[in-house]
């Protein structure tokens, strides 16, 4: 099984839970046709499986199951302050999936969701309706919509191609920027869906050593850089996300050579924006994950005591940021570098 993307091989999932209300949707039928050999488990409400108490998230990441469900409103959520809105009037995100195909140590979803089984919502028309409503509410305002906010839709594409439905829908939209953020190495995706209308591609990048330590099952830096070039070749406006950045003796020497590598492989002229943000997490999630992940050194780190957000000491982070920005600004104009 390829670990770089949600492979089409059924070994990726061990079973499919199907919410009763989701049974007759075209998306459900498409997934079930793709995986005819997998056990199917009917469920009254997806939460009956997803919200069970005492689930072992790591066990579930290694023995994955898929939940097909119908999302109830709301379909759009206001973007949080700790995330970059790239100067848009309105910033929203949407969740076609709960959970993510990857298994990153620093992911806050481990503290937010009780399950790591991926839940895929099949009522796409409802999502489209909500996006239309939001655009109609203030037609002159620019809406920034993160489609892959807390998941990776492109990595999930081989399981169910959400973009097949959304691509023609987005094509004619005005005053909308729809961001597809990914760690995937799915180059075929960009060949299949060349740049169109409001779609922008955002790539999360990290030094190989950080990927090896903290982003289990994700593609290497080299594979991601090749995918970025594929996206650029397909006409995409590409954003680079250096986020989360880690600070510490074992990390500090990694980033500057990494930035050099990135821009030696990618044409900076074709990069529309860069975001830079340090590791940060809601304190409640952090505490929860610390209990669940005794194997992860990240959650043993002594971060400064603060009210809500766990992150690095501002003075320490500031010095590192300055060094990083000095390198980044050699390639990208400062006005296109966004600090989170």
């Amino acid at each position, binding site marked *: 099984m390829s670990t770089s993307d949600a492979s089409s091989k059924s070994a990726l999932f*061990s*079973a499919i*839970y199907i919410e009763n209300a989701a049974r007759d949707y075209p998306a459900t039928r498409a997934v079930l046709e793709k995986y005819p050999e997998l*056990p*199917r*488990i*009917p*469920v*009254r409400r997806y939460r*009956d*499986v997803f919200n*069970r*108490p*005492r*689930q*072992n998230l*790591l*066990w*579930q990441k*290694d*023995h994955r*199951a898929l939940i097909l469900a119908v999302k109830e409103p709301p379909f759009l959520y206001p973007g949080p302050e700790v995330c970059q809105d790239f100067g848009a009037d309105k910033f929203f995100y949407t969740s076609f999936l709960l959970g993510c195909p990857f298994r990153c140590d620093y992911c806050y979803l481990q503290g937010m969701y009780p399950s790591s089984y991926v839940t895929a919502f099949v009522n796409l028309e409802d999502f489209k309706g909500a996006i239309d409503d939001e655009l109609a509410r203030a037609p002159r305002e620019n809406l920034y919509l993160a489609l892959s906010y807390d998941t990776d839709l492109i990595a999930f594409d081989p399981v169910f191609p959400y973009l097949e439905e959304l691509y023609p829908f987005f094509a004619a939209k005005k005053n909308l920027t729809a961001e597809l953020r990914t760690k995937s190495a799915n180059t075929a995706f960009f060949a299949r869906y060349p740049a169109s209308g409001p779609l922008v591609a955002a790539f999360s990048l990290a030094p190989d050593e950080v990927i090896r330590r903290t982003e289990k099952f994700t593609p290497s830096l080299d594979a991601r850089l090749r995918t970025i070039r594929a996206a650029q070749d397909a006409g995409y406006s590409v954003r680079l996300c250096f986020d989360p950045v880690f600070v510490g003796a074992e990390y500090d020497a990694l980033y500057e050579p990494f930035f050099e590598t990135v821009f030696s492989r990618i044409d900076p002229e074709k990069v529309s924006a860069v975001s830079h943000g340090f590791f940060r997490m809601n304190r409640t999630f952090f505490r929860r994950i610390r*209990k*669940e992940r*005794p*194997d992860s*050194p990240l959650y*043993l780190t*002594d971060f400064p005591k603060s009210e809500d957000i766990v992150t690095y000491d501002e003075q320490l982070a500031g010095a590192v940021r300055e060094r990083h920005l000095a390198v980044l600004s050699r390639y990208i104009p400062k006005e296109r570098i966004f600090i989170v």
Partner: protein
Amino acid sequence: MILLIAAMKPEADPLIRFYRLKKDMTVTAFPVFRSDSVALVISGTGKLRSAAAAAMLLTMYDARKDDTLLVNIGFAGSRTRSAAPGQLFIVHKITDADTGRDYYPDVLPESGLPRAELTTYPRPVFEPPEDSSAEDSGDRVLLADMEAAGIMESSARFLETQQVLILKVVSDLLSPDGLTADVLKGYMDDRVSDLAKIIQTVYEENGRYRKELFAEETAKLLDVCQMHKFTRDMTRQLERILMKVCLSGGDAMPVLDEARTFTVFTKTEGKRVFEHIGCQLEKRIV
């Protein structure tokens, strides 16, 4: 520890023989048979008895430790004609016919067994009952028993969702004509080595996801903290440093051994010892 629950003696006997279990004469509430690593209880029929027996086992063997696997092994009637008597299934959905509540144990895909859904009824079922979901059951196998829902309800308070295993051998197609004790014994005898293999596979796989890491070092540290009357916060701080040492491959034992030799009389001395231990542990991070 592997904890087994069977409702009746014919279901339990082959397992008692296979695991060479001895009756625990100190337990009187239910018949319990045990070895060093396996315990089996015969609960009697019905979900209340099975829930009580499960709770008793889970309490007796301190199931909050994450090396517990609770297994229900027993016969089930089949509402699906393709499921032949004697066939073994792993259950991935249990419905309590009384309450309508559903339970979903996380099933290890590597078990390789065919899967089934199971409804727990309050009394024996002799013909397929009305069930709206049966009409669109497709290739699903639907079984019926009288215990599993009780075990799921009970275990949910103690165990994680992958720590419960419901294994059912089909006894009949809800028409027990000609079903004798010898026939049932034969089905179970035929399946006992398969059952043991599955149980071992699941037990070993679950072992990879235990959260109690470096138990020996942690126990020694807690002993030190108690000895020197460290506060909870101080203990937690040292636990974190200890984890860092262990995860890095460092050896914390010499520091912990030394820490046990210190004598602390005052709060100030305690604080000094605490800082010394933390400092020495930090040096052990590789």
